[in-house]
């Protein structure tokens, strides 16, 4: 099995170095180290810093575990001509459990070197105990995510399990940090349950499907938008969007409390939430481009900009109502807050259009992350610190239009 893990690790590295320049990929741990070091300088309260640290570790485990199994869909869409070790289970004389265990081990080893080690050392220096605690929490959330994604794939007990997990984590988070050994034991119990519930049979229960295209094209006029909406509905993308909207918002509420507590934020809660809601809405656009392939369209008389424009239309079609409903549910909804939400979304999407074309994976390229951060930081800080928000919004609205104009031209 060690051979399989080694091959999976090689495959992981090759996928990343195929997507962006190898040097930038290998520099990623250094970047994480620098980022965490600056985080330590920014947040002087050790207790808050520690909580943030373990929360980030927890969420990264959660996202990497979920990605492991759910990624099949994305991988098959993005690289249909490539075969991955995980998905070649039918061709190999290896039990499914062993393949899944190897995948789990690969994720842990990969994240240990590329994320946990630099992130821990950047904040706490050479602190082995904290590293062990971080590994235990990462293993726990990673196994939990594996288990939940298996249950989701089987469509059984998912909501109940999700609820139980959320409540347990809320109640026992501090306990998990204090007792790493017990966390490790729980992680292995969860892993065992994941291995027993994994389902490698992917088939549709429903064979014949109603034609939605006719109705949608009549209404939206665009074949690309209609195609995207059908795709989102049938591939459960809508659930994914709902999930990626709710979860980050919970984190946002938490971050706001921390910012307020340490006094680095002076704006109102509604302004901050509107800003964050706008940023979170970008996940709709990210999902749309992640679920698609330019190659589908490259045989038709379509430019990349045509496809990007249709993704923009679809994402605004979905995110605007979500954004408007969320903001109107605030204690004091105002026009200003609506604009903050909408312009935040527009600005980030236009940055994505400019930087990553239709390849969401490119965002993990260190060079692009740096450019993205450099362009994002002025906006974020202007909203938080500049007293006249309307002028800030107007300036960034114009910048967004320029970025979109150049971004759409750039990849044709």
């Amino acid at each position, binding site marked *: 099995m060690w051979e399989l893990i080694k091959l999976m690790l090689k495959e992981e590295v090759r996928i990343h170095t195929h997507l962006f320049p190898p040097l930038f990929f290998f520099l990623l741990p250094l970047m994480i180290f620098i980022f965490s070091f600056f985080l330590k300088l920014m947040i002087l309260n050790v207790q808050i810093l520690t909580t943030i640290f373990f929360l980030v570790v927890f969420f990264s485990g959660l996202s990497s575990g979920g990605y492991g199994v759910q990624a099949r869909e994305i991988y098959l869409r993005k690289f249909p001509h490539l075969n991955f070790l995980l998905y070649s289970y039918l061709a190999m004389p290896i039990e499914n459990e062993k393949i899944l265990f190897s995948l789990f081990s690969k994720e842990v080893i990969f994240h240990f070197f590329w994320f946990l080690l630099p992130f821990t050392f950047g904040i706490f220096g050479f602190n082995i105990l904290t590293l062990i605690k971080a590994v235990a929490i990462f293993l726990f959330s990673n196994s939990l995510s594996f288990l939940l994604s298996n249950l989701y794939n089987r469509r059984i007990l998912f909501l109940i399990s999700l609820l139980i997990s959320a409540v347990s984590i809320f109640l026992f988070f501090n306990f998990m940090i204090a007792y790493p050994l017990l966390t490790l034991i729980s992680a292995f119990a969860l892993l065992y349950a994941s291995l027993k519930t994994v389902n490698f049979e992917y088939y549709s229960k429903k064979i014949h499907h109603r*034609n939605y295209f006719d109705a949608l094209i009549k209404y939206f006029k665009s074949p*690309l938008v209609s195609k995207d909406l059908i795709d989102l509905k*049938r591939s459960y993308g809508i659930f994914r969007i709902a999930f990626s909207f709710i979860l980050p918002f919970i984190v946002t509420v938490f971050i706001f409390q921390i910012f307020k507590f340490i006094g680095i934020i002076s704006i109102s809660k509604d302004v901050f939430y509107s800003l964050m809601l706008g940023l979170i809405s970008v996940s709709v656009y990210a999902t749309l481009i992640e679920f*698609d392939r330019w190659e589908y369209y490259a045989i038709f008389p379509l430019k990349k900009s045509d496809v990007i424009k249709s993704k923009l239309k679809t994402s605004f079609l979905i995110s605007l109502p979500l954004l408007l409903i969320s903001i109107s549910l605030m204690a004091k909804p105002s026009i200003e807050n609506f604009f903050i939400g909408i312009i935040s979304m527009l600005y980030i999407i236009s940055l994505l259009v400019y930087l990553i074309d239709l390849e969401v994976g490119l965002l993990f390229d260190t060079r692009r992350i740096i450019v993205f951060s450099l362009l994002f930081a002025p906006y974020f800080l202007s909203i938080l610190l500049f007293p006249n928000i309307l002028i800030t919004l107007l300036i960034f609205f114009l910048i967004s239009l320029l970025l979109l104009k150049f971004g759409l031209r750039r990849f044709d």
Partner: protein
Amino acid sequence: MEVIKTLNLVKKFGNVKALNGLNLSVEEGTFYGLLGPNGSGKTTTVRILSGQIKPTSGKAFVLGIEVSNYIKIRENLGFVPEEEYPPSFLTPEEYLKFVCKVRKIENWKEKMDFWFDFLDFSGYRNVLVKDLSRGTKQKLMLAQAFIHEPKVVFLDEPFINIDPIIQRRFKKFIRDYVKKGNTILFCTHILSLAREVCDKVGIMKNGKIVKETKAKDCEKAFFKVFKDVGAH
């Protein structure tokens, strides 16, 4: 009239030279076979000609239009790529309607019905693409390539996974299609297929055409070019 023309076409992928000065000329109304072993540059050639990738150097024209103006070319081009299937979560019916809308085809209903019947996959009209067999997906790709009756068609290994009955029916169809004055560029490494359907073939080796001949002589010519392959 030369429908396809390349002049000293070069394409590099990093250090690998996929095309190394390709000169190709295909006349209107020709069924031209591009033959060669794996990695000889056939797929790269059609990808450049369809505007999917840019050449490193050299020039390429389809219907007299330079490939940089690929939108104009694709309006009159049908293409079955070697490794591409339609989006997973559409049904064949929805996908063909999508194609008709993108290509602004008027009498789309008749055309769709024709292709479902002709390639014998009407029973799968409402099944998601991801649940179709590879052969049925390939039928769908063939239908999308011809539904707008293009002047030029690129077929990259189009018969993979297609059952023999449909293969025979489709071979006759494409032969007749060329007789009407249309042009087909057919990439394959199956020599017997090329002999059966093509008028003329070009044999590719290391990114360029090293021999052009009549299709009936293609096997002899091919093994003459690659006489050392498999000798050891």
